């Protein structure tokens, strides 16, 4: 469906994208990840024909973006980061305009517009001016414009950025639904979005592809160990004696007890326990420690998650802890937004 072959883009003295190489099959939903400035938008703009690559070629459904630009552009639906809307138009006239621009047959326009309006929940707003719409509705309208001509390939640049958690869920559901009939490439820097939506992810950093695979695959291959971090009221020695004979779990001390172990004062130890298999051993651990009379103050399942993979891949030794990666939204519970809202 989409082949990006050795594509590079140089801006004036600055490297945008460097020899990017990937393909997408029909029906895939691919998440495109990377810190800000990694080249996501540049890549998407090159795929949609808004920018021409400095080197390399992009082929959509057998046709080159460079040589058969117009044919390719009619197959692609594109939602830029800020939806391209005309503030003085009404929702309806905007959709009509986009439909004409995107070669929807004249007799289908009316039908297609009303279909989009109902599909994206814009019914009440049809006659409203675009400038008066909330951010969420603007995003929906932009999305409606991107899919009105039923494109084969849908390119979405951060479709959920700047939306409130409820809207994020709505847009995600919509994208999932669209993924049933379209091939979707979406960029985001919200990691859980990728694991909930996509069947494949591409991670790009400083203009280069650093990872290509399914989020599930990476979740399990790197997470075929079950990890738990605990804080126990005990001495290191006690824990060591207790946990060393336990063969299926490796233990390592994260934060040792506070130095002076000869005082009578009780200490706490934080440990990271790694199981050899992906089985949950928390129950056993609880009985083991409580049997020994060592109270557990805290126990938390460690997700060796996308975040860690992402950080590992997009941070180099030299800039560890600085740049890019801070823009990441570490959204642990993406699906319980109401909590956040009520705060």
């Amino acid at each position: 469906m989409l082949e990006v072959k050795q594509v590079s883009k140089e801006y004036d003295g600055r490297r945008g994208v460097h020899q990017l190489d990937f393909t997408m099959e029909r029906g895939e939903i691919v998440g495109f990840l990377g810190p800000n400035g990694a080249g996501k938008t540049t890549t998407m703009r090159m795929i949609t024909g808004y920018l021409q690559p400095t080197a390399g070629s992009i082929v959509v459904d057998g046709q080159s973006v460079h040589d058969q630009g117009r044919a390719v552009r009619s197959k692609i639906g594109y939602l830029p980061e800020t939806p391209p809307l005309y503030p003085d138009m009404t929702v309806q006239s905007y959709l009509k305009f986009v439909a004409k621009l995107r070669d929807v047959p004249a007799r289908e326009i009316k039908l297609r517009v009303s279909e989009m309006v109902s599909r994206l929940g814009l019914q009440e707003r049809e006659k409203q001016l675009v400038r008066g719409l909330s951010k969420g509705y603007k995003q929906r309208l932009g999305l409606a414009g991107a899919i009105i001509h039923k494109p084969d390939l849908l390119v979405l640049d951060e479709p959920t950025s700047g939306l409130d958690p409820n809207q994020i869920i709505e847009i995600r559901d919509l994208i999932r639904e669209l993924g049933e009939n379209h091939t979707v490439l979406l960029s985001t820097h919200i990691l859980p979005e990728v694991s909930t939506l996509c069947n494949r992810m591409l991670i790009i950093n400083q203009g280069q592809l650093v990872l290509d695979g399914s989020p599930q695959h990476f979740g399990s291959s790197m997470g075929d160990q079950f990890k738990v971090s605990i804080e126990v009221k005990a001495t290191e020695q006690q824990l060591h004696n207790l946990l060393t004979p336990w063969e299926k779990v490796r233990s390592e001390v994260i934060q040792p007890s506070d130095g002076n172990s000869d005082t009578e004062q009780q200490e706490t130890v934080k440990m990271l326990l790694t199981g050899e298999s992906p089985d949950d051993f928390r129950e056993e651990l609880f009985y083991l420690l409580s049997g020994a009379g060592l109270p557990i103050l805290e126990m938390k399942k460690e997700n060796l998650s996308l975040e860690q993979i992402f950080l590992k891949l997009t941070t180099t030794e030299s800039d560890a802890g600085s740049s890019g990666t801070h823009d990441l939204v570490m959204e642990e519970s993406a699906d319980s937004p109401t909590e956040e809202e009520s705060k």
Partner: protein
Amino acid sequence: MRRMMAICNKELQAYFLSPTSYFAFAVYVLMTSLLFYSSFVYYQPSIVDYRLVLGDTLSMLLFVVPLLTMRLVAEEFRQGTDELLLTSPARVTEVIFGKYLASLAILIVLILCSLVYPFIMSFFGTLDLTSVWLSALGLFFLGGSMMAIGLFASTLSQHQMVSAVAGFIILLVLWMLDSFAGNTGSALQQWLDPFALTNRFDSFTKGVLSGPDILYYVTLSGVFLLLSIQIVERKRWR
């Protein structure tokens, strides 16, 4: 073609809704009617000749045209809607021509407005109707090429005001081209004379319809439209 008409319609809608276009029309109508008053109603010349009025009103186009064209492309860049247009199956040529077509439609309305004056004059004597109609046609050609220049200026920036000023300067230079050369009759002046914006217009007002004059305006429009297309197309190669 359909895409071009879609863009033209959109621009006409935008003209209809934008306060700037009302302002431009108001300025044009106000100034031309003042000039009409001072040169015709006040002096009450013995002969009834549209040309007496027309010459003065012409320079108003210099101010009105940049106001009417500054938005055309600059606003697309500013709003980011160029991303919609350039990623749609429409050619840049269709986009630019659609916009130009809309500006021509506005120009026709502007010319119709200024035809009120010969209409009033016709009550005071007999007008040379051929000259009036040809003047209107000349106004269309002159205004049309000015609109193309304004459209070109609009592709140069994403700020409307910058576009308007750029458009005004280009128009002014072309307008005054013959007087830059200094002494009348100098070789340079003779060479530049045919390229000055308004010199060609005079033959229309005299009731002469000549091929080279029309060709001049059409070519001028064509060149600036082509330049506009190139500048927008170049955005892809940044």
